[in-house]
């Protein structure tokens, strides 16, 4: 599960770390993407994994639009909490209206991936989770390389540190922000694809993610993709072990305890060296 959690957190971490926008609406983006994959798969009977090609560009555009709106409205870090909370509520009700509060799941005929599993060193890994982990690894590594090695990465880091100054040095900070926002929403959409393949969906699911994703984002360090991946795996394993030992309901308790301990001792995140900001 760690890989999926990390995938869900990377987008939020990026937008918080680099754009100074805490985007609560990301949770509904993940779920919306999952529902779209579900709907397309069921309606047209296509392979759900192929839906990546549909939702990723779609949500990239959505991210671009959202960021342009934030620029127009001059949203700062504090206001972003209220505004995206409002957006979150709107998206939630829209999804509830379209797909109702019922449990939804792609049937086994259309979804061959769900039941397949691997055995590595005696531990069973379900295929969707394994693929999600690989994708998270690729994205985290890719983002890290981008931020440290490329011109675009340098521009992002400059914008994250001081947008005004970056603009003075000839960086189109608005364009950088728009692209970054598009990327982070596209990552959320990818997480949604794996949710659609591996899990049962219902509108309240997005609320339940709050308790897991925010500890990961804070533990990993804002905007730090590799840190987020590590934190995702730690939290995922901790939640998994506690579910086995004390039942699935105990997971939020364990992740929250980890968060509090971490806040007390390492408030700057697990990996101190930040890749951006």
């Amino acid at each position, binding site marked *: 599960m760690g890989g999926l959690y990390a995938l869900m957190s990377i987008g939020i971490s990026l937008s918080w770390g680099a754009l100074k926008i805490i985007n609560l609406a990301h949770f509904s983006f993940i779920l919306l993407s999952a529902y779209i994959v579900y709907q397309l798969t069921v309606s047209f009977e296509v392979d759900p994994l192929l839906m990546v090609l549909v939702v990723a560009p779609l949500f990239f555009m959505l991210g671009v639009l959202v960021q342009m709106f934030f620029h127009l409205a001059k949203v700062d870090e504090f206001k972003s909490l209220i505004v995206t909370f409002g957006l979150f509520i709107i998206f939630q009700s829209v999804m*509830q209206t379209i797909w109702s509060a019922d449990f939804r799941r792609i049937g086994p005929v259309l979804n061959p991936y769900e039941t397949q599993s691997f055995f590595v060193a005696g531990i069973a890994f379900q295929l969707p989770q394994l693929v999600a982990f690989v994708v998270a690894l690729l994205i985290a590594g890719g983002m890290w390389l981008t931020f440290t090695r490329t011109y675009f990465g340098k521009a992002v880091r400059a914008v994250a540190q001081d947008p005004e100054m970056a603009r003075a040095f000839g960086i189109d900070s608005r364009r950088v922000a728009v692209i970054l926002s598009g990327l982070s929403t596209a990552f959320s959409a990818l997480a949604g694809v794996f949710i659609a393949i591996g899990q049962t969906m219902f509108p309240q699911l997005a609320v339940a993610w709050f308790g897991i994703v925010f500890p990961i984002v804070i533990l990993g360090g804002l905007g730090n993709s590799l840190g987020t991946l590590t934190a995702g795996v730690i939290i995922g394993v901790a939640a998994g072990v506690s579910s086995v030992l004390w039942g699935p309901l105990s997971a939020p308790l364990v992740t929250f305890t980890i968060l509090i301990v971490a806040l007390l001792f390492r408030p700057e995140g697990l990996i101190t060296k930040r890749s951006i900001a």
Partner: protein
Amino acid sequence: MSARVRALVGFAAVALILGFAPNMQESLEFPRFYLIFLFTMFFWIAQASSWNILTGYSGYFSFGQGAFYGVGVYTVGVLVVKQGWSFMTALPVAGLLAGLTGLFLGLVVFRVRRLTGEIFALTTLAIAFVLASVARLSPSIDGGTGIFMTGTPLPGFLGEFTTAAYRLTLAITLITVVVAYLIHDSRLGWGLFAIRDDEPVAEGLGVPTFRYKMVALGANALLAGLMGGVWALQLGFVTVDDVFNIRVPLFVILMSVLGGMQHWMGPVIGAVIITTLTDRLNSAGLTDVNQIIIGGMLVVLALAVREGVYVRMRRRWVTTAVSFFGVLGLARLLDLNDSLISDFAYAMVATVVMMLVPDRVWARFGELFGRSHPAEEPIGAEDLTRTGP
């Protein structure tokens, strides 16, 4: 008489009038439904005002209202139903436990100096889920089965059950609003405002920031817990999903953002407007779109009126009075609807729309009518708009 004494006398008068409203119900012949409506409104006024003591005054954004409220509801539920305590002894315990939850949270989050307000916000968001899972796991609290709250005995001098619950709600609401009022004009309040404007500077000037933040958070949690405890009376059936959800934090944020977070009156006005509107939307059968409207309002209001409508209502008091009473009178005259609450809702919507007009546009309107209307006229010490960077 100083301003504070006058205000306290005013609060007492309001308390007496509203407290004896149930006795006058027979003679005035207003529907019993109005009492239930007021009951709901008091609940939200108390929740929004207590939230504002921390978030509005000190600037630390909290999503923890649902957690404190939930602790209150569950303490009363467990102590009264499962342990057989009397309600009046369980209620203070509910407040205390909620207060301790808040203080524990503060101890963890405020101790770490480097933590920003945003991390505080997300930690408060997470704590509701943690408490929810504790309640679900523990059979002595809930264990996933819920608690039936029916026929809780209340002290006889307060009247029969509904009336007694109404009076208790009113009492807690008044305590909350008076506390918010007293803090607003006290050393503590000024200290909190300084923290909101610029915490390092406030600390440098000798404001005991940690202590003040803890007091504000403790007061917020305690009052929210007390109100939750009283609210448990009218819930009937207490479940984890109904108590620890996103509704309470969402509504208190919306109400305070609408009314304005810098003045103690802001959340009160916001709560009155939002409760009236949601009540009308629900009775019009628009429950589905209700949430969408609420979310949309939150986005628009946060971007359009940063200081809240209360500050603008004071600044444009003539327009406020004209649009509110004008529309109210018109609705009464035309007899659009037999419900008085609907007419009030129309008047409130009209007033809020008038307040949404940006200051710049407003100043131009003033010029049209031949008088200069300074857009950013301060209204005394109470208009404490944010001055920091």
